[in-house]
């Protein structure tokens, strides 16, 4: 019998396959994706010969272009809806530009209406039986897509891509500022943006904004009954007096029928919480969906009702365990334990829970800073110094950096 016959190679392969299964840590996935996107944005490196060859080819191309330009009939202007708006690209017949004020429809056929507005530039990159692709060069594109249409609609704007499920929405892209924005009025879109490892769903009434630093934010377009999650608040900006979290309504609520959500939007947290209590706090804890319950807990916290906020966040964690909302509730419980109950050890426990459940979450920076402070306040000097080192490694200019420096500098 040979060695190969004595050793079970399939079992060897099985052990390797189960040990190395292709799962990528979320942070590594994000880092790998960003690295590739950066590489794709950089010009490909060329050696000395490449530069010389490139220069020679370029010189020949310029000479040829000059000859063609001299001989070619002048037809560079673009007619859009009967208006001449001027040449805007090397292949002007494919590009369209809206008048400075007004709109122009892109020719994409049935099932979708896509318009460039107020000087926006764009083109249809593909339009066949299966799909419609539009490139937005700059400005605003408004779209209305039949959700039952067979064709898929994709809008590209810089490095961002909007996959349309069937909806009414607007895309805005400013290449000079690197700012990208999607507002969804009806239905839903999925946005692929380089700093996210996969698509981000944007529902009706929401706006997604991506800035050049890679930060992506979801906010409400207009106040709706659906609450907006509380954004991360830097410590130095933590409100001593609560702020409204959304724009006021265009048409105010009728005076005789205010809702607690409307009062909260107006920054009247105490009144909002009084209304919640009047209509049954315990019942709300057991019946509200996750987003509304999170809003209710935030209102209780901002109204200064620490114990009630704690109850609501704890309920969130039991009713919606394992979700991002539950993770955020852990952060808020840590914040309450530190600021309201003055129990730093409880704060440490909750903040560590949050960081374990959402290491890349929107509160991660704050949580690491608060964890360091809570460890210090709880008397665990060594752990707080270790947390300070971790903090400074990750956020050297973060809001807790001075506290971290002081902790490490003290004897």
């Amino acid at each position, binding site marked *: 019998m040979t060695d190969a016959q004595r050793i*079970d*190679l399939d079992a060897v392969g099985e052990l390797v396959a189960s040990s*190395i299964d292709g799962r990528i840590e979320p942070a*590594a996935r994000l880092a790998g994706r960003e690295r*590739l996107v950066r590489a794709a944005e950089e010009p490909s490196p060329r050696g000395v010969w490449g530069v010389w060859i490139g220069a020679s080819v370029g010189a020949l191309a310029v000479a040829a272009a000059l000859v063609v330009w001299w001989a070619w009939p002048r037809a560079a202007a673009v007619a859009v809806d009967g208006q001449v708006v001027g040449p805007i690209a090397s292949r002007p017949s494919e590009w369209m530009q809206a008048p400075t004020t007004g709109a122009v429809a892109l020719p994409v056929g049935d099932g979708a209406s896509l318009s460039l507005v107020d000087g926006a530039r764009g083109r249809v990159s593909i339009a066949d039986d299966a799909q419609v692709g539009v490139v937005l060069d700059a400005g605003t594109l408004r779209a209305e897509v039949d959700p039952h249409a067979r064709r898929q609609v994709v809008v590209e704007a810089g490095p961002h891509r909007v996959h349309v499920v069937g909806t009414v929405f607007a895309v805005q892209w400013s290449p000079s500022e690197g700012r990208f924005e999607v507002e969804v009025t009806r239905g839903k879109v999925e946005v692929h943006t380089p700093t996210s*490892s996969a698509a981000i769903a944007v529902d009706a009434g929401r706006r997604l904004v991506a800035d050049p630093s890679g930060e*992506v934010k979801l906010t409400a377009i207009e106040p709706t009954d659906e609450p907006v999650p509380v954004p991360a608040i830097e410590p130095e900006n933590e409100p001593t007096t609560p702020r409204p979290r959304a724009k006021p309504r265009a048409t105010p609520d009728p005076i005789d029928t205010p809702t607690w959500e409307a009062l909260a939007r107006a920054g009247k947290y105490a009144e909002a919480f009084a209304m919640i209590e009047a209509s049954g706090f315990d019942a709300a804890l057991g019946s509200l969906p996750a987003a509304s319950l999170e809003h209710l807990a935030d209102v209780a916290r901002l109204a200064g009702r620490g114990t009630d906020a704690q109850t609501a966040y704890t309920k969130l964690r039991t009713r919606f365990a394992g979700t991002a909302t539950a993770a955020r509730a852990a952060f808020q419980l840590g914040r309450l334990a530190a600021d309201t109950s003055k129990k730093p050890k409880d704060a440490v426990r909750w903040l560590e829970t949050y960081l374990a459940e959402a290491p890349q979450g929107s509160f991660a920076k704050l949580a690491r800073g608060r964890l360091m402070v809570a460890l210090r306040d709880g008397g665990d000097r060594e752990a707080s110094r270790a947390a300070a080192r971790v903090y400074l490694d990750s956020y050297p200019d973060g809001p807790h950096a001075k506290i971290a420096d002081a902790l490490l500098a003290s004897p």
Partner: protein
Amino acid sequence: MTSPAHRLAPPGAANVQVLPWAGDDRELMALLQRGGAAAAAVVYDRFASDVHRVVARCLGPDREREDVVHDAFVQILRGVGRVREPAALRGWVMAVAVNTARSELRRRRLRRLFWSSEQAPDVEGGHGDPEARDLLRRIYRRLDRLGTSERVAFVLRFVERHELVEVARLMDCSLATAKRRIARASEQFAALAADDPEVAARFAKAGSS
């Protein structure tokens, strides 16, 4: 609506639901051939797990694997214009990933030839089970002693569980060459494994002793 595949929130995002790539390979091909940052992001989303897995299995889970995965994706973005059929895209991507891992193994082997003190990178991965981790380390120490082509053929056949025809396609060789490489890799690995009592005991076939 597609169900969420990951719950990775980008920095600053609140209440973000992350979904897998929803388009088909035809749509993806059109995007890739236009190039740019969006294409890079989408191709990474679509193939990161597959490329990462095959590279990590070929190399062993060492510290440099992220660089090799990145190199593979750069090659994919550069060469995707050569793919004509959307149905062939995934197979081509995997062949590029295998070839990139193979080049890295060759480079390491050459480096070890000239700098004999240089050791193969230590295995750091595997699951929490210390016994499995130790076995994994021992297996890769033996795989380090196979020829590069034999090692890759071994991984594709016994770890990735590909058919012989697929091994030949991924390694860009004839079926006969693929068979020869697998046979040689099996003999060499088994002989090396037999010298390690722990590996031999763990993977001995029933009734072979």
